[in-house]
């Protein structure tokens, strides 16, 4: 009895420390390869159809769009939430313009005054094929957006197949988005 107790007392710490150690090692090696990111935000809507919405456009940038129009597309669309007050969004613009040469990007101005958002989009040339205004952030809540910029890859038919919570650039496009386009 006493021997068993001692066996447990000596074995449990070693096993516990070993499990934690192996786990930490896996996390670190996955962090280096990019497979594990403790700061990533997982969106529960990935793999699901887009929520329904109808949004007005921005002044001088055409009409807004609805979920029906997005579902009716025959090509995958990258949906990008942005705001004129968001610094990473400013930094993201050149990357978005580069990506827009390969695929259509639809922008949604999140909690932004329409005239500010319109000015922001037009400042150095718009990367967006279409832009809509989510003035009070209601649509963003349905999409599960936690902040801006966030982007979603929407397959034809309206299913969300990828979500990114960082400012996009061509590297992310090549690594994360383009491989997914091949299967569509």
């Amino acid at each position, binding site marked *: 009895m006493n*021997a068993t107790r*001692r066996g447990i*007392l*000596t*074995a449990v*710490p*070693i096993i516990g*420390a*070993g499990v*934690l*150690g192996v*786990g*930490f*090692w*896996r*996390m*670190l*090696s*996955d*962090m*280096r390869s990019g497979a*594990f990111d*403790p*700061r*990533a*935000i*997982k969106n529960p809507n990935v793999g699901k159809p887009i929520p329904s919405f109808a949004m007005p456009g921005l002044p001088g940038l055409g009409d807004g769009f609805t979920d029906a129009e997005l579902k009716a597309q025959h090509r995958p669309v990258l949906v990008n939430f942005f705001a004129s007050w968001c610094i990473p969004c400013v930094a993201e613009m050149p990357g978005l313009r580069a990506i827009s040469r390969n695929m259509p990007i639809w922008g949604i101005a999140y909690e932004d005054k329409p005239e500010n958002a319109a000015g922001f989009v037009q400042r150095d040339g718009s990367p967006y094929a279409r832009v809509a205004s989510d003035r009070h952030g209601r649509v963003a809540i349905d999409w599960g957006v936690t902040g801006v910029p966030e982007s979603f890859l929407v397959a034809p038919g309206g299913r969300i197949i990828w979500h990114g919570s960082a400012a996009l650039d061509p590297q992310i496009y090549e690594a994360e988005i383009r491989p997914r386009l091949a299967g569509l």
Partner: protein
Amino acid sequence: MFGPEQGHFALALACVLALVQFAVPLWGASRRDARLVGLAPYLAVSQLIALGYSFLCLIMCAVGDDFSVQNVAANSAVSKPLLYKITGVWGNHEGSVLLWTLILAACGGAVSLFGRNLPDILRGRVLAILGGVSAGFQMFCLLTSDPFERVFPAPMDGQGMNPLLQDPGLAFHPPILYTGYVGFAVPFAFAVAALIEGRVDAAWGRWVRPWAVAAWCFLTCGIALGSWWSYYVLGWGGYWFWDPVENASLIPWLTGTALVHSAIVVEKREGLKIWTVLLAIATFSFSLSGTFLVRSGILNSVHAFANDPARGVFILALLAIVIGGSLALFAWRAPSLTSTGLFSPISREGSLVLNNILLCSICAVVVTGTMYPPFMQLLAGRTISVGKPFFDAATIPLTLPLLLAMGVGTALPWKRAQLARTFSHLYAAAGIAAIGVVLCFWRLSGIMPIACGALAIWVIAASASDVLRRIGIGHTSPRGVWERMKNLPRSSWGAALAHIGAGITVLGLCGMSQAQHAIVEIHIGETRSLGGDAWTLLDVHDYIGPNYKAMQADLAIRHNGKLVTILHPEKRDFTTQSQTTTEVAIHTNFITDLYGVIGDRHGTGKDTTYVLRLHRNPLAPWMWLGGLVMAIGGAFSLSDRRMRIGAPKRAAARNMARA
């Protein structure tokens, strides 16, 4: 003389000395060669001198604005005040690792100087283990986070420091906290040395306990200071967020508290030996892991160090050697340590066992809650967060019996207690606690705060009544009381103080559970009421500070029409770093904190409104006051004659002289 190259060289020299300090005494001890073992203290002190010199060099680089040093260029600036140039040295990853190893070396120096009465072989082995850990961290410093790295060409000015860190509270928080973390290296070294030797006895318990108590005092202060800092600097109104970095300091505190108590049982009853050795290893292992986790970027925390997985791999390897090695040694040698004596459940030692079980259960809860999110993400790919509801629900039910036992424990005698007799000592305390229950029902809402509050009053009353009974209040003459007061061991005073401190902290936590707050958007001249007080925004004005622009509000608080205070919360814009900080304004009467924060300005002209956050925090200062009282209690028991290592020998010398 104090340039970066000299500092770099001194660091390398210290690392070599630490390696020698690791190897030579261990080799000497196994050969029973007294001369080799006797080298250990000299090596430890030389290592401390070399490292101290290296640290001084880094400070001189920062003070002298040597921006050719990468670390100074990235964290300092010409315009920074001198105090923050110095304290900024440890406000970043590289400098803090250097400080960490310096404190470790200082622990080795302290063992060399104050441990003269230890058996030579034991002291040699303890210093060897400390040297080994030191060498590992100095290599980490040299190979992956060199604080003396140069940049070419050197920039004209540095990038400055995060303005949030420009605060005297935070400037001295890391050294205190690190002393707590690193201080547990000494009990760890004692545990490993005892395992190598294969012997743990009452004397070992007496030697190890002061080091554990000293480290515990610093860790307690460090945690309290960190919590206070987040309360008055971050301006969120909270004091503890169950953030992984906070948990990383709480976990070793819990096992360290258990260690401080279980070592008493080793000393007095020669029991719990294996368990105490394991606790000593576990506490330092948790301290190390905490450091590692914070710096590897695995945990998602608000307190971010520059994360670098490559560094993480190095520390993980170091941890595997230190923790894995000591646990393997433990598994191999622990069964040879024999325990003597059987425990009666109703006795002092029985209550200390209960204390250990409960503290370690709380620790297991905190470890689980902290490690669950990253492991869930690794294994199941799901992002989840574990927060306050889990920790509250899981730790409070464990804290209640802990508080109950704390009151009874010190009243119980060793070996075998008679319940009836013990309880007869506790009638008065139980009476006060009963009044406390009524008081809690009146002032607090929610079953858990009421239970915790009543038990906290119980702990304070029982600890105080225990001391009063021992000094004979009520049944001895005043002169006799004075005599007994002088003769009561300081460790008994210390224990009572520490327990009272814990009670005060718990009362503070209960009070804070009743905190009220409101976020209001008001015009100048408007009034809002919160918790019976009327808060009026009198005026808002702008001014320009040394390196920031500020917006300051005058916020008057009236209670029943009588002016209580005028708070001046500020919002500062640091232009060079493009960062904003909030300066919280707090008015305290030690019963309630009135806490005001100013947010954004909306609109212009007559329509200008200001967002204000108003908090009414009952008993908030008690949380940190209790922590301070706990640490003072620990320090008091450190001053006990019996705790001082040389006591038996010195007493013997005195007796000799007398004879």
